[in-house]
């Protein structure tokens, strides 16, 4: 089998929470050695965030190494404890950066300044370094030092305003959505492009990904529509301008769906022919001939009545059955799945073995997201579960940084490796 694309490369992962670590994890999955720098003096909040693994008696496990939230973003990484609030700690950090190809951080500009992690400073010790910075707003600018949390990113970037039903306030989409694919994905796209450039020229560079800029870039047509047309779009629920019916429709309740018995199916009917096919599949062929719904324009004009009609047809059917029926008729439809569905019931996800089950010394056996892209010759590998806090401190100091036993002992005594 061919070597993984990033084998031989090293990543200094000075990030935390979601966006930074997820990006770094992808690099580990495709062969890089990734060293997460952490400190008990300012622990990654995800290490102490739900969901925690559980003991057999139903109580939650405790400690820094039992969070599914943290674990899922840090598979295959080494963890080194380093207190960057000390001068000696920063020296050790520089030593790691010197020996790395890629540096990733989503620390705030204030912290980057405080800990001497600015690009100009890193480039001095390692001119070939590719250094990626992902601050909330930017490394410069009037909002540079604004407080940022994932919860605030979703409203600031326009996602909240544009999502959901128009009669509801814009409360967001239930998660810190941009942290998980958009921001880490954009970061790594840029890092990989920079790697290719470095292969051809020998030059490293700085990548700045202001999270606000990254997200707004992927916000559909909303901003372009304002800039080009002066038009301010409003959230439109689940409907579409080019497909009707288009939305989520309630099906029969399923009491085996734990604390989530209401079941829905999403449907996107994209042509008049599909509409007729849908009607036939659901045993309502006469509706397919009804002029109120015969064309897209007609369906959009009478969309309230259309949705009421469709809801009536579906309310007593199993969502899975509706999906199967409509898919057989060539119509895009899918159950609104929850995690129980995806992990335990979705035959397709099982067949593709997307989830990896890894044994972790404190969490136990648990599921990890597999690589989100499949390469046929150099497939991604989750080579280990998430690391315990500081699990590899001594290994990194010895093997990677080349520190002597005495030097390491001093660092431990001085409270640098905490």
């Amino acid at each position, binding site marked *: 089998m061919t070597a993984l694309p990033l084998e031989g490369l090293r990543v200094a992962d000075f990030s935390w929470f979601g966006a930074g670590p997820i990006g770094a994890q992808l690099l580990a999955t495709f062969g890089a050695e990734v060293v997460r720098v952490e400190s008990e003096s300012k622990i990654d909040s995800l290490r102490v965030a739900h*969901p925690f693994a559980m003991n057999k008696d139903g109580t939650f496990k405790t400690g820094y190494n039992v969070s599914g939230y943290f674990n899922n973003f840090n598979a295959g990484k080494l963890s080194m404890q380093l207190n960057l609030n000390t001068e000696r700690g920063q020296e050790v950090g520089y030593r790691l950066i010197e020996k790395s190809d890629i540096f990733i951080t989503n620390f705030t500009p204030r912290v980057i300044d405080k800990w001497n992690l600015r690009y100009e400073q890193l480039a001095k010790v390692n001119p070939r370094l590719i250094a990626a910075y992902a601050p909330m707003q930017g490394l410069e600018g009037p909002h540079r030092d604004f407080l940022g949390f994932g919860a605030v990113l979703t409203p600031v970037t326009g996602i909240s305003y544009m999502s959901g039903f128009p009669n509801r*306030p814009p409360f967001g989409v239930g998660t810190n959505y941009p942290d998980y694919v958009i921001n880490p994905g954009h970061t790594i796209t840029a890092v990989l492009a920079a790697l290719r450039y470095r*292969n051809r020229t020998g030059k490293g560079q700085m990548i700045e990904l202001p999270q*606000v800029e990254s997200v707004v870039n992927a916000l559909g047509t909303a*901003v372009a529509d304002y800039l*080009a047309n002066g038009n301010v779009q409003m959230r439109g629920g689940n409907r579409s301008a080019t497909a009707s019916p288009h939305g989520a429709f309630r099906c029969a309740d399923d009491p085996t769906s734990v604390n989530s018995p209401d079941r829905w199916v999403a449907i996107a009917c994209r042509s008049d022919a599909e509409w007729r096919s849908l009607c036939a599949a659901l045993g309502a062929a006469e509706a397919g001939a009804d002029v109120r719904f015969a064309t897209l324009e007609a369906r959009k004009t009478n969309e309230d009545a259309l949705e009421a009609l469709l809801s009536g047809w579906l309310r007593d059917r199993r969502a899975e059955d509706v999906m199967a029926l409509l898919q057989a008729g060539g119509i895009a439809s899918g159950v609104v799945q929850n995690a129980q569905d*995806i992990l335990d019931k979705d035959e397709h996800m099982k067949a593709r073995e997307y989830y990896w089950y890894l044994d972790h010394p404190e969490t136990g056996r648990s599921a990890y997201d597999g690589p989100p892209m499949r390469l046929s010759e150099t497939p991604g590998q989750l080579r280990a579960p998430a690391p315990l806090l500081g699990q590899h401190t001594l290994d990194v100091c010895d093997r990677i940084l080349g520190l002597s036993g005495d030097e390491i002992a001093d660092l431990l005594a001085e409270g640098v490796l905490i």
Partner: protein
Amino acid sequence: MSTPQGNALQGLRVVEFTDEIGSYCGRLLADLGADVIKVEPPDGGRQRHSPPFFQAAGAGPDTSLAFWVHNTSKKSVVLDLETPRGQDLARKLVLTADVLLEDHPVGYMAAHGLGFETLRVNKPALVYASITGFGQTGPHSGFAYSDIVGQAMGGLMTLAGEAADPPNKIYGKQSDVSASIQAAQGILLAVLSAEATGRGQLVDVSAQEAVQLSQETAMQTWDLQKKNRVRTGESGAIPLRLPGVGVYACKDGHVMCFVIAPAGKDFPALVDWMREKGLAADLDDEPYAGICNALNFGFLTRLMGEPEKLQTVIPALAHINDVLAAFFASMTATEAYEEGQRRTLLNGIVSSPRDLGENKQLRARHWFRELDFDYLGKTLEFPGAPYRLSETPVAISRPPKLGEHTDSVLAELA
């Protein structure tokens, strides 16, 4: 190819056969400097005919903003793949490329003489990326797909919206976009490998898999605790309405607050601001003052563990929240955001598209681009790039007209 200069992906040629799911992937590569040639059917795909359009010019394949935002910096070549000549030219074109990117239903490309196994014979280094709703293999690989179906089957929709409403989709074709972003990374990984070893490979991206990470903690909550996360709408993660947490209406919009979070100042700083504006009402009196001073995560956790205490405190919390709501309603969303942040309070404006267009940070950083739409006789402002690279800055050029480069590209082939 020529010596690399100024563009990260200089010298990388991509031929793409994409419509809605995969076009953003091509854009990411094109804006980073790859030579991306989009092969389109004679009428253009679905995306070219999707609204909104550039209003001053009317609807058409060259004025769709839906197409524009996912297709900057590319060339366009029209080839009819249903004809032998079209297939032949497409094949010749692909053999000049390093990467093929497509998002057709499984089997379509092979049926039109453009399958991976056929092409790799003459081009062993070819990176062949296929983006579909459910991937190239598996029981659902033949399923019809649309963005809302990806969001549904991928576990996103069940987490979004009020419990009393249908689950919400996230705006902006996020299943398509996620698939494209994962594919861009996959392609570049495969390109690095191909450039090192001379061996290409297949990159298989399923939109359903591409969005899985966006379930945040739902997967782990089921796996570790056998509970499903459910949508909670306005209450978010916190099961009661706490002052300083959630969406507040302003004069002209909304602001989202999360003052209780362990970042920035706590509720007393918010009361200080209200007091300065003469809008603190009776919050300096008991029992409100004591509660305001104690409002933080620790307080909430203790309250949740003492249901009787919680009951006595709820009316006071509701009153404090009413006073706060009236306070925010007295100002614009921009004022609430900027002054709140200036006072180190964690809040964020619920940006409308106009707010984004006028966002002081984006403007100060010159994030917006001016694209020359020569064929429309206009220079138009356009959103910028997701990242800034110091040696190889992202250059964005306008999206191509349908078939704009057919003649020049085919002439090169001959």
